[in-house]
């Protein structure tokens, strides 16, 4: 989840009232953020991924201002009408079809403001924009932008410009192999035959989305007016990102001007801050929450969360600000009412539904098996479901066979799922060769067997390691286990890659093989650098306790 760092001083200025750090620390978690800590003037909070509107100090301050009653209800933003125009060329329709834009003037780019703008852009890119795949944001110095702006796709080498933080003129395809950002994000465009660019009226490249802006429009300390473009493949995400970034800048007292986007025959004026409305019934809210909150206090609770609401009897009509992208269902509004009311102000009650507890008998039966073995002095171990070829096959001289495999494993130790327990139990003994003997261990665990489909089985593995461990010693224990479980299991000759021939048997129950028992072959012991004899038994225990 994204962590936002901001200046406490800047935050208070944006809220419009000074609150103590303690107040922030106590309040923010109850608003749905996680308090990470304070370092001097810098505060860190973690924000939930469904709240892109809180990815900046401006957004946090806006929410706090309403929550703590400095000014509740919908934040008021004005978009000034203007003649700025942007033309979308058909060529982008198969590449990166959507664009949103805005002009923001009179931005006071203080150190805090620049830091916050960069942080917001970066965090939006990572989360809301899915690493620039769904949308990407470009921020430009308005001075270098000539209108009308054009959004078009060009040949990979069809145009030249100096990318940001570079001194060399490059074509888009050169950017993808030579520029740091180009290399990092090349995968987003290199399947296309034409690349999207935002162009000034005199055909200067402003940006090559979603890769990089042009050096031409670089934001400098002297910058006061901005042109913002957001391009992408998901129109909703594009417009939401535009609204979030513009509304943040307005929080610092800047002025927003509209841009008219011409796309084919249609045209729309952006940014569009019109609130969405949603109906909510007071009864529905009370039933979900269980707390007797009167409908008439709900508008107040909603205003505390930055909404506006008009009440008509038991019904509410709620206005949702443009940046609250998380509200999909009336239930989302109910949650905001609950947060506004305060989770700690609820009276916890117990549901009236009665029930008679019913356990999964397998679990309690397996617990009995554990009791039998621990009674014999065996200690229970847990190994992971994930292991690797060395443990499962090569160190045991077992032929490689199909098992469930992990896609793109992060560690070479964890690449496949075990299909029997014994290999890791033997590995466990190998890891403990310097600890005191005797070592008598068992494991009850899941294995995944890859046949035509994946079979999940519950197995038991029992192993004995000490200077005179042998077949009959362990077999005696297993016989008692069978007797305890009341199962009639027969024994017959068998073979196992890692056991001594003639000293390994399989167990047969209801005409099917349910496991084996045998002494490990000395060559396998040597593979594991084990210096004592080891006897091991594995059973398909679910079949025996069912």
């Amino acid at each position, binding site marked *: 989840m994204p962590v936002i760092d901001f200046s406490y001083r800047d935050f208070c200025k944006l809220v419009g009232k000074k609150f103590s750090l303690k107040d922030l620390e106590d309040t923010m*978690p*109850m608003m*749905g953020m996680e308090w990470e800590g304070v370092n001097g003037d810098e505060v860190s909070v973690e924000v*939930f*991924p469904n*709240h892109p509107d809180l990815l900046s100090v401006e957004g946090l301050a806006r929410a706090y201002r309403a929550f703590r009653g400095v000014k509740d209800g919908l934040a008021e933003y004005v978009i000034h009408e203007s003649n700025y125009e942007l033309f979308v060329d058909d060529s982008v329709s198969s590449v990166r079809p959507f664009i949103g834009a805005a002009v923001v003037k009179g931005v006071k780019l203080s150190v805090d403001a620049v830091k916050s703008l960069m942080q917001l852009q970066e965090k939006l890119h990572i989360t809301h924009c899915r690493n620039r795949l*769904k949308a990407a944001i470009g921020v430009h110095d308005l001075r270098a932008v000539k209108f009308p702006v054009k959004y078009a796709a060009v040949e990979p080498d069809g145009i030249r410009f100096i990318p940001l933080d570079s001194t060399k003129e490059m074509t888009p395809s050169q950017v993808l192999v030579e520029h740091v950002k180009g290399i990092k994000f090349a995968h987003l465009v290199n399947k296309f035959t034409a690349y999207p660019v935002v162009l000034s009226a005199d055909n200067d490249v402003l940006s090559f989305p979603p890769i990089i802006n042009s050096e031409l429009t670089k934001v400098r300390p002297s910058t006061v007016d901005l042109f913002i473009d957001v391009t992408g493949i*998901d129109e909703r995400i594009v417009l939401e990102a535009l609204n979030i970034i513009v509304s943040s800048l307005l929080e610092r007292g800047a002025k927003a001007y509209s841009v008219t986007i011409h796309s084919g025959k249609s045209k729309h004026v952006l940014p569009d801050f019109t609130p969405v409305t949603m109906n909510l019934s007071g009864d529905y809210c009370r039933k*979900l*929450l*269980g*707390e007797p909150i009167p409908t008439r206090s709900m508008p107040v609770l909603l205003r505390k969360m930055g909404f506006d609401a008009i009440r008509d009897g038991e019904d509410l009509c709620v206005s949702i600000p443009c940046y609250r992208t998380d509200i*999909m*269902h009336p*239930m*989302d509004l109910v*949650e905001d009412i609950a947060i506004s009311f305060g*989770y700690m102000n*609820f*009276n916890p*009650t117990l*549901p009236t*539904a009665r*029930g*008679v*507890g*019913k*356990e*999964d008998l397998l*679990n*309690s039966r397996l*617990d009995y098996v*554990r009791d039998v*073995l*621990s*009674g*014999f*002095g065996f200690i229970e171990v*847990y190994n*992971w479901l*994930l292991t690797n070829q060395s443990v499962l096959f090569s160190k045991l001289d077992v032929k490689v066979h*199909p098992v*469930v*495999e*992990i*896609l*793109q494993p*992060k*560690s070479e130790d*964890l690449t496949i*799922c075990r299909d029997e327990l014994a290999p890791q139990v033997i590995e466990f003994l190998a*890891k*403990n060769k310097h*600890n*005191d003997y005797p070592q*008598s*261990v068992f494991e*009850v665990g*899941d294995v995944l067997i890859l046949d035509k489909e994946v079979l*999940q089985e519950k197995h038991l593995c029992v192993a004995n390691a000490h200077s005179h461990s042998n077949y009959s010693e362990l077999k005696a224990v297993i016989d008692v286990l069978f007797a305890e479980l009341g199962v009639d299991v027969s024994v017959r000759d068998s073979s196992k890659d890692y056991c001594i021939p003639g000293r390994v048997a399989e167990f047969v129950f209801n005409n099917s093989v349910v496991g084996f028992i045998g002494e490990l072959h000395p060559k396998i012991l040597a593979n594991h650098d084990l210096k004592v004899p080891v006897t091991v038994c594995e059973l398909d225990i679910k079949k025996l306790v069912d």
Partner: protein
Amino acid sequence: MDYDSVADRLHELERKVLLALKDKDSQTSDSLVKTAGIDESSVNRALLWLSSKALISVKEDVTELYALDVNGKTYVDTGLPEKRFLKLVSGGVSSLDKLRESLSKDEFNVSIGLLKSNKFITVDAGVITLTRDGESFLKKESDDEKLLKLLSSGPVGFNDLSKDLKKVAADLVKRKEVVKTELKTIRTSSLTRDGKSVLKFVKMESLLGQVTPELITNGSWKESSFRKYDLKAPSPRVFRGKKSLASVMMAKFRRIFLDMGFTEMSGPLLESSFWNFDSLYQPQGHPAREMQDTFFIKEPYTSPLPSKELVRRVAKTHEDGWTTGSKGWRYSWSEDVASTNVLRTHTTGVSAMTLSKLTKEDLPSKFFSLGTVFRNETLDYKHLFQFHQLEGIIVDPDASFRDLLGVLKLFFNKLGFEKVRFRPGYFPYTEMSVEPEVLHPVKKTWMELGGAGMMRPEVVKPLLGFEVPVLAWGLSFERPLMDMFGLKDIRDIYSDNIDVLRKLSAFTRRF
């Protein structure tokens, strides 16, 4: 010191060693083996016990010993190679080639060099002649042979050798594996003042030790007295068999929910993304579905999806909200993405499967499970890639958010945490989402122990076919264990070190 009482509790080995030291200033361990009449390890044990009671003082000296090495042991029987060489020459063999055949290469080279430099032989055009010196050397026992003979009955200290033998020993060490040096610690023990006083009370007659069947039946205990034990002596280390801490605690956690009237549910570890993500209204392309958190499966890559109707409802809900009253996630849902297999990242998929099988007649119902889940994280002292989740749902037309808080509070109270608080949280499948926290009874800090919430209509309606309040939670199993058992490293719960497991006790007074 109560000498009498100390004397009474001496072990038989201690008595033997004390008596052996009587009237002597000091003795080495080797000589104690003889005078006390017990083996070396018994002497060592007795010395350890006695010195810990300050009845004797033990002085340790490290000396260098000479001992026979592999070849040296052979030469004791076969003779030194240079002697064998000379014998062959004096027996009439004079060709170098013949001699080469009779000795190993090493032996031949050493012999010829040594014999030539000592002028015991002369070599002329491949023919060897014995000199007069050589003849006399052959006849008498050399210092080398004397040393080998001496060492054949055991290692000898450097200082115990005569001046001549010291010299040859130094030479023989240089030859290949004939004589080697060893370091040996020699313990010399003597009685302390307390030791001497205790000794006065040590009884000469033998005391009864272990009670044996013979002793009981033959009545010999009537004539003798029992040796008193040193009751404070450390006991030998033994290990008990035991269930894992995790298994013991799983049974306890399950008990709590069974007592509260819940039915236990279970499901597979490997499932399709459909159950792990899509049925829980997690949009395709959601960061949580991406590689860093989830173990996707290469083989088998996909699983079949459930019934067409259920898939249709879930797909519609993602795309436009279906009939749930939601806007949906507004994207084009893919069956292929939903079919890909994962190791389940939570047991909430098990709740989804359970919900999909319920009918109106089954309500209200309560379910729980305690199952294994997987996250593609790096193992460290507070993260596991495989752990357990305590999952629960209450499906009840009359249930509310307030009831959810009540159930969570009751559970944590039963677990021994008195103070519980609730913070807003976020999960894609619940709304109200809540993160319950408990106050650590000792550290007095708040600990987050999982997540909970009311299932979103976008989850409930596609699965059940109708809307009903569903209270749900997924709580951490290992985190509270760390706190209850004071573990600093979460990996200790599933340690691969048998000593850690042997020491880990599952006893708790908390609940």
